[in-house]
């Protein structure tokens, strides 16, 4: 499975034509304590860079953008019950949604782990 990153601090794990999307450890550190997550509805069509989800810390609300164009095929209900998962397990347990990839060529513009590390250094 390939993991890619956006410059807006989302990660994508690619499995066939579906990408699982979450936010990076760097992003959760910047946000601080997450107290609420609003997720998209399954079946929603999103274009790349559309606001897909909202993550709220004590102080502020931040958008999570669709890293690629596609259809939402699953959401992580565990985040609604336990938003603090975003802080404690950003890379695995706190995935936000799964999106069916409409155009694989959009993946070419994303970063691999080394490039993302350099981006946040």
């Amino acid at each position, binding site marked *: 499975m390939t993991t890619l990153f956006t410059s807006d601090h989302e990660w994508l794990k690619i499995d066939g034509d579906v990408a699982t999307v979450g936010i990076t450890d760097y992003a959760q550190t910047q946000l*601080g*304590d997450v107290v*609420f997550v*609003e997720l998209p509805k399954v079946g929603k069509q999103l274009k790349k860079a559309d606001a897909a989800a909202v993550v*709220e*810390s*004590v*102080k502020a*609300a931040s958008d999570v953008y669709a890293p690629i164009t596609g259809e939402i095929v699953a959401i992580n209900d565990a985040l609604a019950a336990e938003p603090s998962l975003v802080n404690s397990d950003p890379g695995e347990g706190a995935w936000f949604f799964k999106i069916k990839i409409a155009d694989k060529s959009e993946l070419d513009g994303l970063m691999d782990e080394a490039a993302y590390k350099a981006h946040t250094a």
Partner: protein
Amino acid sequence: MSSSSVEHPLKRTPLYALHLARGGKMVPFAGYDMPVQYAPGVLKEHLHTRAAAGLFDVSHMGQLRLRPKSGKLEDAARALERLVPQDIVGIALHRQRYAQFTNERGGVLDDLMVANFGDHLFLVVNAACKDDDEAHLRAHLSDTCEIESLPDRALIALQGPKAADVLAPLSPATAALRFMNAGPQQVMGIACYVSRSGYTGEDGFEISVPADKAEALATALLDHNDVLPIGLGARDSLRLEAGLCLYGHELDVATTPVEAALEWSIQKARRTGGARAGGFPGADVILKQLAHGAPRRRVGLLADGRAPVREGAQLFVEQDDPAAAGYVSSGGFGPSKIAPVAMGYLPAAFATEGTTVFADVRGQRLPMRVAPMPFITNTYKR
């Protein structure tokens, strides 16, 4: 680039180096470079203050002295009553009172604390308003009072249930202070002014200290195991849970003290029929509202869901109303309440406890209930 984008350098408080040394995340606030949070983060800083004690740098706020030219304090108190609807003459020695500077429309120019220090009145005002406040005082009170701003004093707030135990070894006399007592106190041998007050809903103190001694005092307080430095983020969530107004949010030049549900702060002596009724800017508006009610009111709001409802969210009386009836003036997540909490303004008819209104959050209308404040039980030592 337009001329308005020229940046003014941010001012620093006497505790600036300490904030950096302690890992404070610095942000611009009211013209100062201030810590918004430290490593533990807003949530833990908030909960620590409610459970133990938090140290806040509030040195950006303005400190002023009003000294009567006649030598009689009552003359300064009567003069200040020309600018605020509060009973200043009636403030007993070493007591402090919450007040508002009003304008001709009854709106609020700033809110402040006024203490009777015997030969002068000691005022604490908001950072963003302090220059205007000083000019306002000079314009109206120079005939009666010497007005002295005190930029070489820092202000430290120590808040929380352990605050009194932390301060007592450094200043034994402070243990005997009751809520809103204020006056000179030795702290670690430093000549300070200490009031038993704060803005978190907790027991605690505000300590005015000479700037060159501020870091030594703050360091001594922080050396205590129960004390953590707390940033502006938690200061805001603490005062929101405590149901306390913040200038620029709940209060502004177009909002009267009665609309802001602050009539408790206007004593009988200044109301219609009182010994010194009226005589402050906007008295006609404010006295009428005290007698007959204001058209809109500040209320507390609790949501059923978990989504925080932020400042600026519009409030609707019905789920599908096209026009907003009110707005949220401050809102967020209450770490002690473990729920979203907010304050806002509603027409008087809907500003009653238990009324359900709808807040617009990203296009969804979320139900909120008008609820009593504070949202937490305050622990003032009355």
